[in-house]
């Protein structure tokens, strides 16, 4: 599963990611970016375009193994 992390300390609100993937990233107001951290896998190309376009390289993309996530979920429930 596709996962996104944006380093909001780096983000300078150029909004290039919003142009590239407008259903995944959006501006809440002029300054603050919000995003869907778990977009549908079909949006991968748009998300890759968004990450590459970021002028401050604040966007990371990763793949989450579903089994691992379930184990992680169980683990946290046990705590």
């Amino acid at each position: 599963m596709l996962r996104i992390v944006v380093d909001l300390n780096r983000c300078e609100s150029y909004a290039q990611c919003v142009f590239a993937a407008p259903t995944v990233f959006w501006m809440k107001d002029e300054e603050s970016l919000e995003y869907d951290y778990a977009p549908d896998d079909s949006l991968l190309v748009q998300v890759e375009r968004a990450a590459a376009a970021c002028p401050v390289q604040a966007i990371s993309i990763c793949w989450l193994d579903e089994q691992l996530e379930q184990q992680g979920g169980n683990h946290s429930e046990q705590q």
Partner: protein
Amino acid sequence: MIQQSLYEQVLDYANRANPYPLYAQLRQTPVTRQTDGSYVVSTYREIVSLLHDPRIGSDFRKRSVHDRPPAGLSTNKEQAFKSQVPEVGTEASASNEGSETEVVPSFIGLDPPEHDRIRRQATWPFGPPHKPGRVADMESELICLANRQIDTMKGKSSIDIVEDFAYPIPVTMISKLLGVPPEDQARLHALSEAIIEGIDLDPQKSQEERKRRQEQSGQTFKDLEQYMEALIERHRKHPGSDLLSGLITDYGPDGPMAQPDIVSTASLLLIAGHETTVNLITNGMLTLLRHPDVLERLRREPNLVIRLVEELLRYEPPVQILPNRVALADITIAGTIIQKGSPVILLLASGSRDPARFHDPDKFDPDRRDNMHLGFGCGIHYCYGAPLARLETQIALTELVRRLENPRLAYDQPPYRQSATLRGPRHLIIEIDGVKD
């Protein structure tokens, strides 16, 4: 003969095909004062620092020192025109007869707070927060357009990437975006070309020749302004879904854009749409043909194009130089004091090849991860059209590489356009064995 400075050698047409060794020499001294009182900045750290510095402005009216004063041109308006257009930045009245038309720079030539307001107004119908999907929604149309252009190459063994492909794509898209009727496109092509070619900083050209070209370019700019006024009038009466209609009728919290600002913004977007992405696409194909292994990889891995276009923006950027900044105060940087009122010239393409910032900077490496290039500048004047330029180039290169059979350079190197600032080949002749469906 007078010895040319390194920067004058960059402007010299003789060095257009490969300015990069000159940039490397310039970087030995990050900030150099030119004999005309301007300062040339060539290193990554210093360029980024100045682009984020509020003491650096973009408004020519704040200059007290004028670089390269053209013989016989002395009024403010003429200086305004001359100093702005190389950056495709202004709606200056280029009158040589001293008409009273007001000089209205577009937002590329303004400083905060005016800049910020007009840029927000210009972004309202183009992108977030109001129209976040405007550019992304153009994807399927761009794919169709690229393929229509490639279809015209069927049956040919030799094609010009510039005329047959790289020029028509951005021009068709910017015309559509601005709601320019198709029958006007040829005329605007000619106007845009005349404006850019009229602005020739080449020190090898005689003063007289440069003056003549500037005057001609000024008249052309007036023609473009008149065209835009008429087009705006038509859109005001019959608004469509295009960007220009949006600028006129669909405004946000900043209120409607003033008429002179609409004219200057539309003119800026039109020229920028004609003179920049064409070079990014052409430089892209040239670079791929010089790196056949990368071209072959792109054919197999189409998504490589995303990072590849970023690397192109670092390695062969279409905008090489930002020639029109001005120091709003005395600024001490890299051991030099840039005096208030002085023109400041930022060599973006040099910064993006700075070995102090990029590993192995002269290598074209589409897998480069650490790539905060200066292809679109940075700071408040970051390229407005960047999202469109990226998508156009990604699609253009993907489709070319997918469909052309055995593309190869007819000769290397290609002839270049005149401009050192907006740099790219005038023609790029390639040979092909055929075109796939």
